[in-house]
């Protein structure tokens, strides 16, 4: 499972396109497309870099205990859409 106690942010080569269902993410480096399937998850994912840890970002959005958000972060980290930030 992804380490939630560090800072994550979107990879600089990732573009986010808002959609009614959430967002499409495209990584210009890996050419991979991902789907974020809720507007709430898009807000959390795009704000990750502003928080010292992913857990703080989840807490700020009031979804710390919601497993779907953690899974979203884990999946995006696995596909390098998200990277560790200092």
């Amino acid at each position, binding site marked *: 499972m992804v380490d939630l106690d560090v800072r994550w942010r979107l990879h600089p080569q990732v*573009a986010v*396109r808002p*959609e*009614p*269902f959430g967002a*499409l993410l*495209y990584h*210009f*480096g890996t*050419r991979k*497309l*991902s*789907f*974020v*399937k809720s507007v709430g998850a898009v807000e959390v994912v795009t704000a990750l870099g502003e928080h010292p840890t992913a857990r703080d970002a989840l807490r700020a959005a009031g979804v710390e205990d919601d497993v779907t958000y953690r899974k*979203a972060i884990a*999946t*995006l980290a696995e596909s390098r859409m998200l990277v560790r930030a200092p």
Partner: protein
Amino acid sequence: MNPVPRLVEQFERGLDAPICLTWELTYACNLSCVHCLSSSGKRDPRELTTRQCKDVIDELERMQVFYVNIGGGEPTVRSDFWELVDYATEHHVGVKFSTNGVRIDEKVAAKLAASDYVDVQISLDGATAEVNDAVRGPGSFAMAIRALENLSAAGFRDAKISVVVTRHNVGQLDEFKALADRYGATLRITRLRPSGRGADVWDELHPTAAQQVQLYDWLVARGDGILTGDSFFHLSGLGQPGALAGLNLCGAGRVVCLIDPVGDVYACPFAIHDRFLAGNILSDSGFQNVWQNSALFRELREPQSAGACGSCEHFDGCRGGCMAAKFFTGLPMDGPDPECVQGYGEPALAAERDKPKPSGDHSRAGGRKAPVPLTLLTPPKKFCNESPV
């Protein structure tokens, strides 16, 4: 975050912008493949100018269309081709372009190797010259291999070898894979469509029912790392749901579309015909307007009737198959795909049918005589210096 049915339904209702889009830059081509989707050969005098192409790119950037699949014709014979590729990547529109390799010399290969945002797809329809050249024309195998060699030598990573699966090359899938491995390339295989000149050869070239099974089995067993462009969703009824990778839905007018060399927008790359013409970017106030408001695309985004396929247990898997394949073989749109894996397409194909007349054709007169690469090797000084007729 794998797609789930809910997301597929979203896609079927259409997105505000396509996920990706095919853009054919020219109808001019040095080859005359027998199955050409766009019946290419001669340049069209109305082809978009450099400025008009850049305007399209600006619009795609605003709409956040992440990448375009550029094709043709042979797109690299446009004298402004590299200028447009650079313009697109500078404007956050990634480029994947399809080529027969005619212009991929050592110098071009080195330039491509230096770019992070350009993908190259070399078309090859046989793993041997004999099989390939019968479809793509004399010398075309050697031309494609030379391009792959140049790319590989220049350090270009992960070129794509793009294969249209036919009756004659379906037995060569392992050989194609070996060829791709040799050049550090990825194999991409797609379905033969009866579109363009393909309508004339489809009956003889499309894989037989037994070969469809062979193809499906190969994809399930060896398909990891093989690209298919979601091309074979009509085969999903051959096995368990989800056994084939991909979304397995027809994205025409919903998540994909085609812009042709004169700015006409069609529902998909396999549907260059008035029946699937949504509008024109020049006369209908730009691409975004056509994408979002055209009557055709609105209709395609409505729930589609399952028609004769409604009672089939595999309907959820194949959704009735490919719209273009049905249309160009003269089958009803709300019936089975001509290559329906349950065999429902066969009686329909055997019955009397009316194939639609093509609504455009840029083939060179007299068909294929000999390869004509030399006349096009030097780009015309100005776009229109070379007579399109």
